[in-house]
């Protein structure tokens, strides 16, 4: 059988189609790169400015890394900020670290226990309690924080680590992430363990929790970054600078010199605050995103 003659029309279309396709791809990539540049810009400038010796902004803004940004300025600025006052900022850094770590350990620990119980263990009133947890997701912070402030006052927890940590441990979100994940683990794995004579407590620690590593990773990262960045509660509960966390200290830093902002020091302070989350994000982007995507999954 002989080939039918090639239709010239189709060939022309083929070329046009390919061109259009390639063009769309190129436009897409260019737009992506432009957006990435746009989003990097503030952070790039933060790094530049943190390594300069000028407290002033220039006009027009200068993005040239070779004019005035130097390692020695960077170190100088770091030392100035880190040792500011009697080490307020260094204190805030260690406070932030301690608070965020404590909240993460407690919140993810309790959240995973509860998430597991809601997913797998059977006890009267389970669903009622789960609805209760569900309901707290809808309660906005403003209606809580005034009473909690007085509660802290009554407990004598104002300006204390307990006061910073304990109220932040309540996280319905961690319970959800955990419950949802435990539901996806085949129940037969646990049934086999049950037949082997393991108690529910042991099944959780030896079988189910190790299988839920991705959910733990997502919870840990979301909680740590969330607590590290939290502003309003630390602002309310710690009036004494020795109990400030980084966001509170950074806000103070902005106003420390009256109307004139010392941009090099301000940006160095911002950098100190932002870098830990950036590092965690860079290493665990996948889990961070999985934790957030959790909302769009139907439940």
């Amino acid at each position, binding site marked *: 059988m002989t080939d*039918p003659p090639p*239709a010239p029309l*189709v060939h022309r279309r083929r070329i046009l*189609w390919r061109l259009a396709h390639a063009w769309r791809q190129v436009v897409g990539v260019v737009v992506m790169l432009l957006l990435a540049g746009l989003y990097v810009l503030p952070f790039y400038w933060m790094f530049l400015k943190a390594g300069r010796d000028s407290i002033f902004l220039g006009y027009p803004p200068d993005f040239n890394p070779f004019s005035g940004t130097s390692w020695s300025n960077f170190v100088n600025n770091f030392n100035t900020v880190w040792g500011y006052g009697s080490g307020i900022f260094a204190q805030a850094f260690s406070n932030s670290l301690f608070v965020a770590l404590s909240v993460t350990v407690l919140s993810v620990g309790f959240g995973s226990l509860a998430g597991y119980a809601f997913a797998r263990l059977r006890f009267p009133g389970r669903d009622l309690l789960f609805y209760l947890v569900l309901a707290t997701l809808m309660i906005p912070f403003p209606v809580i924080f005034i009473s909690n402030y007085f509660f802290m006052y009554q407990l004598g927890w104002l300006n204390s680590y307990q006061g910073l940590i304990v109220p932040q441990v309540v996280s319905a979100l961690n319970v959800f992430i955990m419950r949802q994940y435990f539901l996806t683990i085949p129940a037969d794995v646990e049934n086999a363990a049950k037949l082997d004579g393991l108690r529910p407590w042991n099944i959780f620690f030896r079988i189910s929790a190790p299988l839920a590593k991705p959910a733990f990773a997502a919870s840990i990262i979301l909680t740590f970054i969330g607590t590290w960045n939290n502003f309003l509660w630390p602002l309310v509960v710690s009036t004494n600078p020795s109990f400030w966390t980084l966001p509170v200290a950074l806000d103070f830093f902005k106003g420390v010199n009256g109307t004139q902002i010392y941009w090099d020091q301000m940006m160095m302070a911002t950098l100190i605050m932002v870098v830990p989350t950036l590092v965690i994000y860079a290493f665990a982007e996948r889990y961070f995103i999985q934790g957030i995507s959790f909302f769009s999954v139907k439940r």
Partner: protein
Amino acid sequence: MRTIPVEIRGLTVRFGHTLALQGLDMSIPEGEFRVILGPSGSGKTTILRSIAGLIEPEAGSIWIGGRDVTLLYPSERNVAMVFQNYALYPHMTAFNNIALNLRMRHLPRDEIDRKVTGVAELLHISPLLDRTPRELSGGEAQRVGLARAMVRDPAVYLMDEPLSNLDAKLRGEMKDELRRFHRIVQKTIIYVTHDQNEAMALGDHIVVMDRGRKQQEGTPKEVYDRPGTVFVAKFIGSPPMNMIPARTEALDRPRYRLSPEGSPAGLVLTSNGDPLPPEVQLGIRPSSIRLDPTGPWKGPVEYTELLGPQIEVHFRVGTTRVVAILPRTSAAEGLLEAEARKEVVSFAVEPASIHVFEGRTGEALGNPILSLQSP
């Protein structure tokens, strides 16, 4: 009227480093119910998706009705597809699912209504038109899928395992439904499946695929009666054809000594005159084996199973296990007890029904055996 054949020429598709299809040629005349049969990974679905335009092939071309459609957009090829998981738009009613394509072609509203209700009537789904996919059963959803394809009156229907998500009973009903559907539309249907029963029941013509290559093409009868390769022989028929590797040694032509692998005793074979290679595989359908105390094949019984009207018996011949399906005679029923004793029984096979394949390439050599005896 101009006919609309489908031609595939030298189609090669590659996914990363794996070749999904290798230089495939196929030609399907208009109005045929063509089944592409193969195990998963054989490239059968890739053929379908290439015809639909969902995959751009690396080489080769696809012609529909004498028009090269290789690089046309899927909706411009005048083909419609029915999916395994129905792929109905979950947010639209059955009516809108069927009508979407007509809307995209800017047909007037009353014409859309007329066409959709007409198709719905033909496929008996008129009462379902207001439902959303989640309110439909599997069978109903697949009927809506068929309607969505049919309403466009395409030249070619592509069906990707449309019955495999249905339960066994429904599958039987839908098979009849599909035959009726083909009678109504009288258009080319290219149907992909891994189920040989579906292929035998539905196809005018079957193409058997394996690892990106066409193994055999023919009517269901041809493919079953004269399998072209060992692969086809084993793939079609249930339980599959027994394959006994053996050596042949020429005595005085056309007589050969035949030694099944691992079997101490040889057999004497008379061929129809065709020369036999030194290594062969003998293909024997389980149903062509009968018990015969004087038969040339001997072996211990290893396993038996009562299938109702028939009895399945597993013998060992040399190192090969041979499955036989025997009618339920008293002799055969006696074997149900023979299993425990590993009793050695004799059986015979009609020589003309033994398929001979080349030992290494697996190519069919036909049925050249005239007689087979113990020496």
